[in-house]
Each structure stands twice: as structure tokens, then as C-alpha cells.
């Protein structure tokens, strides 16, 4: 099965699921409204977006230097730094750390980078118990599903589906589909895990080079628990998350939380700079940071596409995407769904693997309009479409460039070019199309599944304009 067929199957499955579509529609409507309420002054919003873009661009421009400074600072602070080029290297390193400490149970805070490396399965296969502690992630762990959204991972499930999962996995708890009671149930179940887990694994939102500080943004407190209660804390993040200065953090934090969930700030902003110090009574004895590349440094090859790396993972692009709202996150079939997924995943995994994602975009611009760091998402997605059908791929570009070029499609565009560049052929084409307008071409494609083939006018505008006396030059 080629990637398009697989993609169409996932889309079909999503579109057939009315419940899923209702869940996404109402969730996205709510998030959009809450975000908008945080930005009552559009001019201020636009300035804040420029500021955030500037900070991220500076971070990317000095990335090597900042990563080294980050490493130096963290090391001085007693945090151990590990580097990984591939997901496998990252997973193996994390496993080594756990093994050396005979850690057999792990609680996890939410981390999309660990989804990227499929860390849970890697550790589970090696006999380590891994518990997701973010409520959404925990629900998905019970359901054995990947996240469908990078911020609200279980957004595709309604409370009845969640209630069923709790009943199946925690029959000792009385059945409830009340959200407060379900939350209370999760609190009880997960407390026990936190109380005995050997290690906590988390992501990172910003890694500050200046002070050697790992910043985590969250509402639940599971991130704080994962990074405080167990004796080992391992953070994993992409190398692009480094920022230069502490003063870079407030503007990024503000636009992140407002864009992501419409909150002026999250409940917790957790800044970790050291492991437990002598005399301190809690906190992990060891703190590790795993810095993952996984294609990120390669994305910098391209002057245009490197804007992708500014992303601060707020999810606003998917919240506002008219395609995402209809099909949901799983239809994309990749770790990151929605517009940022369409842009990032083909660059990370290759056009030959997931380049078909670029077709799932109307270029409506809703994502680019809300992106807090002004990534020109539509423009870059369109650029990837060009990469996907490139006739003469070089070797320094996006992996798999040219993989989606088909001879028949290329021929259609060649023909199109012939018609639309030669006025005599174009006139003849229009003459035929208008005079034979009631003879519909025997085309049956996606368009005709939902709409009839449009009927040409009896005469084209070019003829009518001339008849009405408009000059032609």
C-alpha cells in the first residue's frame, strides 16, 4: 500500500466517525475562543509575535554556541547532559541511565519528543514499567493510542469513552462519567505510582543557556511530581529548545500559554536548575538532560524551511486548521499532526515516507495567522509540495525529494502549461469548451463525488469583453 492509500484510509476512518468529529469540532471551537479572549488588542498581539519570532531566531542563529553554553552551565549546576542524533540513541541512553541505577519504574510527564522516539515501548520491552502521568496521556496509555493533539492529547475522546477505560482498567473504582469524579479517580491511581517510581521522565519547554535552567510548562502538577518525587529525573528535548537568556523566557511563555490554551499563564511554570543539594529534603539526586537532534540540524540546510525550527509547540496551528478540525490528529499518522506536522514530519522522516501529508492543506492561511512565532506555515507547506514533485532532486535537501512525482501528473501540468502559455491554443480550448459545454467530460474523480462538473459559459469573458467594446490593449 502506498503512503497515499494509507493516508486516505485513515482519513476515511476519521470522517466516518461522527462522534470523533463532534468532539474535535467543539473542542477546537472552545480553544479558539479562549485564545482570542487573551488577545483583545490585535496590535499588541502582532508586536508580541514579532518579539517571540526575534527571540527564537536569535536562538537558532546562535544555536551551537548556546547549546555549548547550556551544557557548561548545566554541568556546573550538577545536571548531566547527553546528546543523541537519533531516536534510538536517545532511548538507549535513557535506558542506560535507568539500568545503572537499577530503576525499574518510571513516571512520565508529557513529552512529545519522547513520542517521537517511541520511548515508552523501548523501555517497556526492556522490562521497565512506564506510567504516563498527564491525565490525557494516561487515558491514551490505557487505550493504547498515540496522542491526537500535541497539547490536549486525548481530545478525541469524550467522557463516556474515558469512563469506559477507567472501568476496564480500574474495576475497583465505581463507574462514573462525571469529569470531576474521573479526575479524582485518576489522582488516586496515579498518586500511588508517584509514591514509588524510581525515575521521572519529562520534556522541556525552554532550556535557558544563561543559567542552565530547564523550564516546564504545565497545569496538572504531574510534571512537577515526575521531576521531584522520584530519585532520578531525566528530561528529553529537541536541540532547538535552547534559548539564550532568562529574559527571553517571559515573552515566550506568555505567547505560548495564550496561544496554546488561552491561559494568561499555566498553573505551574517549573524551573529546574540543579539536582537535590546537600540538606535539601526532596528533589531528585540525579538530573539528566538528553538533547535530541533527529533531523533538526539538517533542516537548517534550507534558508526557507529552517523557519520550521522556531516552533514552540503550542498547537495553535492545529487548533485553527479547518482540515484538522474535520479529521483529527490520528488521521495524519505521524507524531505531530496538523499544519506543523505537515511541515515538520516530511522534513524529519522524508517525503518518500510521509510527503503525502502536504496534500492535506487548503493553504487557507489560518495556521500562519495564529502562529506565535510567525512561521509562514502555508508558504513552507507549499514549498514542500514543490520538493515532493521535484524533477531533478539534489542530495542536500529534504529527504525523499521528488518521491511523489508521478509521470501522469507531470504530464497533465505540462499540457496545462502548453494551453495556458499559448493564446491561440488557449482560445481554441475555450472555444471548444464553451460551444460543447453541455457535453461533460467523462471524468469521475474526487471532485465529482461531492459536486457536479461545472458547466462552461456559452461564451468566454474574452469574447464577451470584445463584443462589449472593451479594448484589448
Amino acid at each position: 500500500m502506498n503512503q497515499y492509500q494509507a493516508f486516505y484510509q485513515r482519513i476515511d476512518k476519521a470522517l466516518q466517525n461522527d462522534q470523533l468529529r463532534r468532539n474535535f469540532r467543539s473542542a477546537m471551537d472552545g480553544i479558539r475562543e479562549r485564545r482570542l479572549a487573551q488577545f483583545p488588542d490585535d496590535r499588541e498581539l502582532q508586536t508580541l509575535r514579532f518579539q517571540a519570532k526575534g527571540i527564537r531566531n536569535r536562538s537558532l542563529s546562535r544555536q551551537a554556541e548556546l547549546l555549548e553554553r547550556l551544557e557548561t552551565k548545566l554541568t556546573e549546576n550538577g545536571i548531566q547532559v547527553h546528546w543523541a542524533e537519533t531516536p534510538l540513541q536517545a532511548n538507549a541512553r535513557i535506558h542506560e541511565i535507568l539500568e545503572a541505577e537499577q530503576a525499574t519504574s518510571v513516571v512520565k510527564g508529557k513529552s512529545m519528543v519522547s513520542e517521537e522516539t517511541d520511548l515508552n515501548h523501548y523501555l517497556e520491552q526492556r522490562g521497565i514499567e512506564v506510567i504516563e502521568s498527564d491525565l490525557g496521556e494516561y487515558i491514551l496509555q490505557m487505550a493504547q493510542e498515540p496522542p491526537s493533539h500535541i497539547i490536549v492529547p486525548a481530545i478525541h475522546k469524550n467522557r463516556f469513552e474515558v469512563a469506559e477505560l477507567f472501568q476496564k482498567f480500574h474495576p475497583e473504582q465505581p463507574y462514573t462519567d462525571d469529569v470531576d469524579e474521573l479526575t479524582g479517580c485518576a489522582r488516586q491511581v496515579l498518586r500511588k505510582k508517584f509514591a514509588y517510581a524510581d525515575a521521572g521522565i519529562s520534556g522541556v519547554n525552554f532550556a535557558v543557556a544563561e543559567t542552565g535552567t530547564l523550564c516546564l510548562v504545565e497545569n496538572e502538577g504531574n510534571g512537577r511530581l515526575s521531576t521531584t518525587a522520584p530519585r532520578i529525573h531525566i528530561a528529553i528535548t529537541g536541540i532547538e529548545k535552547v534559548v539564550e537568556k532568562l529574559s527571553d523566557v517571559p515573552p515566550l511563555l506568555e505567547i505560548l500559554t495564550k496561544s496554546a490554551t488561552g491561559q494568561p499563564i499555566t498553573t505551574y511554570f517549573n524551573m529546574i536548575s540543579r539536582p537535590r543539594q546537600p540538606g535539601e529534603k526532596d528533589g531528585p539526586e540525579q538530573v539528566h538532560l538528553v538533547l535530541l537532534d533527529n533531523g533538526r540540524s539538517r533542516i537548517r540546510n534550507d534558508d526557507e524551511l529552517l523557519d520550521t525550527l522556531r516552533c514552540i509547540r503550542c498547537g495553535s496551528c492545529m487548533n485553527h486548521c479547518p482540515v484538522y478540525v474535520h479529521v483529527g490528529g490520528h488521521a495524519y499518522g505521524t507524531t505531530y499532526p496538523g499544519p506543523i506536522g505537515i511541515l515538520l514530519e516530511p522534513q524529519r522522516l522524508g517525503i518518500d515516507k510521509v510527503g503525502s501529508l502536504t496534500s492535506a492543506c487548503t493553504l487557507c492561511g489560518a495556521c500562519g495567522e495564529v502562529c506565535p512565532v510567525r512561521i509562514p506555515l502555508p508558504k513552507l507547506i507549499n514549498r514542500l509540495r514543490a520538493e515532493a514533485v521535484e524533477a531533478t532532486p539534489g542530495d542536500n535537501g529534504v529527504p525523499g525529494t521528488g518521491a511523489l512525482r508521478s509521470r501522469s501528473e507531470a504530464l497533465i501540468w505540462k499540457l496545462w502549461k502548453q494551453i495556458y502559455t499559448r493564446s491561440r491554443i488557449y482560445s481554441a480550448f475555450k472555444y471548444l469548451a464553451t460551444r460543447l459545454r453541455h457535453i461533460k467530460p467523462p471524468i469521475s474523480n474526487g471532485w465529482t463525488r461531492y459536486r457536479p462538473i461545472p458547466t462552461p459559459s456559452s461564451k468566454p469573458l474574452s469574447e464577451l469583453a470584445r463584443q462589449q467594446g472593451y479594448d484589448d490593449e
Partner: protein
Amino acid sequence: MSSARDNILQRLRGNRVDLEQPEQNIPPLEAWSAEQRITRFTENQEAVHGEVHTLPADQWIDWLAKELPKRGLHQVLTGTGDTGNQLGASNIESCVFHQYDQPIESWKPELFSQIDVAITGSRCGIAETGTLVLMPDRDEPRLMSLVPPVHIALLDATKLYQSFAEVIEEERWADGLPTNTLLISGPSKTADIEQTLAYGIHGPKQLITLLLV
């Protein structure tokens, strides 16, 4: 593993990018008066389901003596610093005070299941977002503000800053940060089920700030 490091850094240096441009900054807000900061802090903390009580600085123990029994909060966790010591000496009716004076490893199950409320100080506050800033230390460890179902924090109203940026600058954070620095805005919450807000998923269900003036 050092080769991964070198490879990555080499690639980053090989692909030098220069995107730097003069950066735009948001002009700072008009400075708020002390009263305005108190009002904003209170409004914003309450907007995220936090409770704020403004009290004269010498009356917080009286407030607790009245409220803790009324709210059924009996098992009270305190730190080992001034706040904790004053509380320990206070003899509040029907309250048992537990000082966090041992490493967590020796009493983790008790902390997770038997404490009703923790009472801590705070470093400062942020009016713009209704935020408490804590720097947990050996006297007031990290889990105090996280594990018990209720967290009560004392905040000196003169330590209310306007914005997070101002805190970083005025408190000279760039010179170095302690083990853990926390911004807390409201009780623990989740909206992971149907986008419906529910409180106390992992951390406190209730956050009470005693704003001391």
C-alpha cells in the same frame, strides 16, 4: 556518545544561519501602584480558582486558627523555617503539625496520603498573572506546595511585582537560580477530558494566598 555531541555541533556550525534582526520589544506597561498590584494579583489569582485573603501581617496565625478547623484541615505540614516554627508554637485547636524535617524517602507514603494542608511562605508575587513565586529550599521543600490537597502560601504584599520580566530583572535571576524555582498560578487543574476544567488532578485542589499587608 561524545561523537553524537560533536556531530551535532559540527552540523550546526556547518549550517550557520543568520536570522538575527533588531528585536521588537513590547513597551513596558504603565507602572501600577501598590494598591493596583494587590487588586490585580487578587483578581487574577481568583480568576484561576485561587483564594486570596488580604490580612495585616501579624494576623495570619489568627486567620489560620479560625479557618483550619472550620475547613476540616487537621494534619498540617509546615517547613522548618520561621513560618513553620511560628506555626509549630501556635497551638491551633484540633491541628496536628508535621514539620518537613526529614528527607522525603523516609516518609513518602505519609506525605502522599495523610497530610491535609501545607503552609509555606513565598519569594514574591506577580500581579499581572496572579502568580506566586516560590523558591523551595531545605526549610520549605519542593513537595510541600504540590502533594497535599490544600496549599496555603503567605505572600508579603511589598514583594508584589508587576510582571514576570520585572521579577527576573529586579531579583537578578540571571546571576543564577536555586535548585528549583516555581511560578504557581492557581490550584492544579486539567481540561484533558472534554475540555472541562477539573481541579486537583495531581497537585492541590485549593490554593490559598494570605496576602500580608
